């Protein structure tokens, strides 16, 4: 935003929201929303499957934001905007009587505990159990998990090194996490 003070560019989301609540100046909310345009557009693309519809939805969401931001107390802007975006897209699909494809309806974030453990957030006992479960994984899944979580390789890096297609790398990681979760839960139940 060319006319906004440089200080505002560094301001937190919540500070900009507070400034907007004070004097309802669209510049603040524009600056704030500007930070999230790619994220909002990406989510709209996922649901609406079309660049024009996604673009229109982004503008609609911005308009909705300008009205709602003044009316509600928003403690954490980012998750709030995510819910606003998602609900807007779902409503749009409902109005069109479009059924949500299965791949979209499925939860996109799962096995959070396993991800945390693989990220190093793990107690000594669990570490041993995680290692056991890692050994039980099919070779390709284990290879991808090790490269991604321990060697810090991106999906594209792994695909280049292993020559597995990019989609396969993603699904090997996904299945690897799921299998680890099942294995770890089984271990917990046995202990209980």
């Amino acid at each position: 935003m060319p006319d906004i003070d440089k200080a505002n560019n560094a301001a937190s989301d919540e500070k900009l929201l507070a400034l907007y609540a004070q004097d309802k100046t669209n510049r603040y909310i524009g600056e704030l929303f500007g930070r999230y345009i790619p994220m909002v557009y990406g989510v709209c693309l996922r649901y609406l499957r079309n660049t024009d519809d996604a673009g229109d939805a982004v503008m609609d969401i911005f308009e909705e934001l300008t009205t709602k931001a003044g009316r509600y107390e928003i403690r954490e802007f980012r998750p709030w905007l995510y819910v606003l975006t998602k609900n807007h897209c779902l409503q749009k699909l409902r109005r069109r009587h479009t059924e949500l494809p299965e791949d979209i309806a499925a939860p996109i974030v799962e096995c959070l505990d396993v991800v945390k453990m693989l990220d190093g957030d793990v107690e000594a006992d669990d570490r041993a159990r995680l290692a056991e479960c890692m050994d039980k994984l099919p070779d390709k899944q284990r290879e991808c998990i090790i490269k991604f979580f321990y060697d810090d390789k991106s999906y594209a890096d792994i695909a280049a090194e292993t020559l597995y297609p990019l989609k396969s790398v993603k699904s090997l990681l996904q299945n690897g996490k799921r299998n680890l979760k099942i294995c770890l839960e089984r271990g917990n139940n046995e202990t209980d």
Partner: protein
Amino acid sequence: MKLTDYIFGSRRGREANRLERDAMSDPFLAEALDGFDGVYGNHSDKLADLRQRIEHVSEHGKRTLPALHRRRIAVWSSVAAVTLGTVVWLFVIPAFKMQEQDVPVMVAANTPLRMQAAKAVVAENKMSVRTANSENAVTVELYDSAAVEKVQSDEIVTVAVPMSATGNNRFVRNLEFEEYFRQNRKVTMLADGSPAEGVVIVEFRVNDVGVPSAIQVVSGFSTEVNADLIRLLIEGPRWEPTGDRRIRIEVTYP
């Protein structure tokens, strides 16, 4: 790493891994990534257009036209453009055909390699060479091809090249972008610890809102640098729209 750097960059290295990891516990980011990967389209153009529209609404407090109206206007504009294009093609173009033949190609001649390239273009096409000050591309004198030797190392050589000889691509300079580039480039070191030094040539067209689109790196030396430059082109100052014609720029790191 910013989402746009990841989407339009090489997606390699630690930073890409970090963003992919974050997406595993952040549904907002995960859904956005899935959206970009799942839908084909010119997303860089769309994002630039959206940024501009949001800025406009924020500054002027007015909503741009609703989608239906915009589509109607787009249809009528297309009809008008086709009609106007036909008229120009039939009556106006023949009158200017001679002037279209020479397209200036800017060649920065501050390295022996580029100087050699300029000489080759001149020799192959038997052209005249004109020198110009680097800050001001106004032609000052005409030389024959041998005179390229006399061009000073810090000068820009402007070569008049027939459109066919350049495949409709041409090197251009945008001083505003060059300044923006100097101030905002981020990559100074490469992943292997060596300094980011070298020349990158990128080719693109400039869309109607003045944003480079369909960007292609013609030659470069590092994927991180490529991603950095693409980001700067998308986020940087506006350019003169080029329609379907593609242009090239040459950028030197650091």
